[in-house]
Each structure stands twice: as C-alpha cells, then as structure tokens.
C-alpha cells in the first residue's frame, strides 16, 4: 500500500517535471533509497507500456522523463503545430557529431575534419545551447574548447554520451 502511494507520487513528479529527473532527487522526495526509487520508476515504465497508455517514461540526460508515445505525434502536431521547432541543418549535425565524439574540441579541429569553415554553425549551436565553451586549450592562440551540453542529450533523447554508437574509422592506410 505504502509502495503504491510512492509510485503514484513518482508518476505525478515525472508528469510535472519539464526536465529529466535524477533518481536521487526522486529518492530524496520520497525518503527512500536511490535503488528503490529506480526500481519503482522502472515498474511504472513497464506499467505504462503494458497498459498501452499515451505516455511513456524514458531515460534522458542522466535522469528519467515523462513524454508522449512517438506513435501519437501526428495527433499532437495538429494540436500544437505552432510550437514545433525546425530540424537542425546537416552542417549543424556534422559539427555536433564531431563535438560529441571529440570533446573538448577546438574550432580548427572541427574545420579540419569537415574541410569547411564552421564558425557560423558553432555560433548557432551555442545559441541553441546544444554545445558550450568549456575553456581554452593550452598552446598557441589558446583556442576555445567546445563540449556538448545536457540539452544536447535531451534534444536527441540520449541517456548519456555512452549511448552514442562507436565511431567507425577504418585505419587501413595509416600504418
């Protein structure tokens, strides 16, 4: 009974939160352990999916978040059409991919991989808060270093950077 109450509380908490919620935050709110909280979240996750509900719980940016089921998107787009933002450009995705895998990385390093000047794309990604400046690289010119943000993980629905597939580089001709 007590546990059921806690699970209902977690459901309400995830429903209200606009950001992914970390398990220790859930645990603190319910005065229970992180392990217990995680177990209950997973149970809720399964219940929602088993009952075929319109909402789902998924992992994003190191926490849990409640969102709608992907198959309902066409209905929801009709209702919220004005609020849907545009997709990222191919250039933006290329730069993001390079930053994600090579971070912290400088602009020159990114440009050398792409073979194209990329300052403009970087500026836009900074504005969108998908990347941020983490500091400066020691060395000549002390160039800025770029890293991805929590918003990056959220935007692509990633739990953490480890969820990205391995970069497939064949080094046949290298040595």
């Amino acid at each position, binding site marked *: 009974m007590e546990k059921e109450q806690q699970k209902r509380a977690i459901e309400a908490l995830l*429903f*209200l*939160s*606009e950001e992914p919620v970390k398990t220790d935050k859930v645990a603190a709110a319910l005065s229970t352990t992180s392990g217990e909280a995680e177990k209950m979240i997973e149970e809720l996750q399964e219940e929602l999916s088993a009952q075929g509900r319109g909402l*789902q719980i998924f992992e994003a940016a190191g926490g849990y*978040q*409640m*969102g*709608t*089921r*992907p*198959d*309902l*998107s066409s209905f*929801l787009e009709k209702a*919220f059409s004005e*609020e*849907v*933002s545009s*997709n*990222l*450009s*191919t*250039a933006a*995705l*290329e730069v*993001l*991919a*390079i930053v*994600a*895998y090579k971070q912290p990385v400088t602009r*020159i390093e990114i*440009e*050398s*991989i*792409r*073979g*194209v*000047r990329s300052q*403009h794309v970087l*500026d*836009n990604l900074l*504005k*969108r808060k998908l990347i941020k400046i983490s500091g400066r690289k020691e060395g000549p010119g002390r160039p800025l270093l770029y890293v991805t943000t929590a*918003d990056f993980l*959220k*935007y*692509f*629905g*990633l739990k953490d950077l480890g969820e*990205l*597939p391995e*970069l*497939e*580089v*064949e*080094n*046949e*001709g*290298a040595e």
Partner: protein
Amino acid sequence: MVEQAEYKIKLPTFEGPFDLLFHLIKKAEVDIWQVSIADITEQYLAYLQSMKELNLEIASEFLVMAATLLRLKSKLLLPRSPKFQEQDEEEELFEINTAEELFQRLEEYRAFKKAALHLRQKEEEQKKVFLRSTGGQKIMVFTQQESVYTIWEGAHHLSEIMQRFAKIAAQREYVPAFSAVEDFVIARKADYIYAVLRQKRRSVPMKDFVIESSLWEVIITFIALLEMSRQRKVNLLQDRPFEPILVSLIEKQPELFQPEEGESGERTAKESY
C-alpha cells in the same frame, strides 16, 4: 570514364569538399583506400566546371581542394625528389601532402558523417515525443539560421532596461512616483506641444518641449508624445538610436494617412481630387 552530362542536370549541394569527394567515391563504388587520385581529380574538376556553367557560387574551400587534388596528382606523375619539400602555408584546412593523408581525412569525415546521420535519426525519433515543456526548446522561434531568440532572451532584455532605468533614477536621487503622472498633466503637455508645433510649422526636437528639464517632465513629455503619435496627431522621427527625436505635426489629410489593412500594396489614385 566521367559522365559530365549527368552533373549538369541536377547538382546536389554538398557540405564541403570532403562531402563532395565522398559522394564521388561512393558513386564510383570503390573503397576509399582504393580510389585513383587521377580519376577522382577529374570528376571533382568536372563537378566544379558544371557549377561554373550554372553560375553557381563556388566556395573557396572547393577551389583549395581542387588545387590540393591537382598537386597530389602531379606528385604521383612526377619522379620523386627527396630534397624537394613543399612550402605551403596558404591554407591550414588542407594540409594534405600524400594520397594516404587524403584518404585518411576522407575516412575520418565519412565516420563523422555517419555519426551525424545517427543523430538525425535520434532527432526524428525525439521530435515525435512531446514533453511537458514551457521553458524548453519548443518555445524557440527560428526565423532564419542566424537569428535564434527565445522568449527568455526578450524577458532578459526587458529586465536589463528596467535595471538601467532604475540606476539612472537612483543617480539623480529621484525616483519618479508614477501615481504623480496624472492624466491632466499629460493632456496639458500635449496641448502645449500641439501649440508649439502649430506656431513653428516645422519639426521640433523633443527636448525643446521640456522646459524645466526634470526627469519627471521628460517622462511626461515622452508619454504625451507617444499618446499623440498613437492618435496620429504627430509623427515621431529618429534617424538612429540615441539621436534626437524629431516631432512634426500631421496635417489633416485623411486620404494619405489611412492605412487599409490587408491592402497595403493597393494605391487608389486620388491625386486629382
């Protein structure tokens, strides 16, 4: 070997020279490491040529790559002289001196392109999931690529303006009490402005209407002018921020000052009237 005609019909756009090279290699259905520099150079130049014929702007990166390819090709043809070391610092984007280096770079680019494709898939998947969000990315307004503003930025600017205003007010050791700004004071100021303008029959800088030059009076004058402008009694003109605001009277010519909503392009010829 090169089918030039094919490029002429439809030119896909590429993210850069590596993107184009990568496309050419894929088209030739060979492995990156098995590419013939001579072939790829020929195809690359053919593509640039067709871009030129279509009067498309060719980004400098593409031309630098063309030069790099030609240099690689000539190196393969010419006998090697170990003493000859090329000195070129023209472009740091392409420090490519051997075919192997080029393949290495292409291979690296290919890997990241694939990673970018994966991100695109994740983006598509995630786009279908709606979150309970008021402060997140969904309120962002994307008009053009370079201008991304959020409502929060707007709010930030507003609070900055208010802070500046408070600072100025504090400096003058006088915080205007808005309850004192009563309607009749504004109306009286408006009457005064109106009288001055009618007498002078030309545009007058806003500061000329301020007699006591107190902060309070500046505010009254400004509010009065805004109200008069709203009622289409005066025109307010300012060349650029912080320049003097010029006030001029709007003569009673209703034909000229009636904006017809939704028909801005249409002009009725009533000059003869």
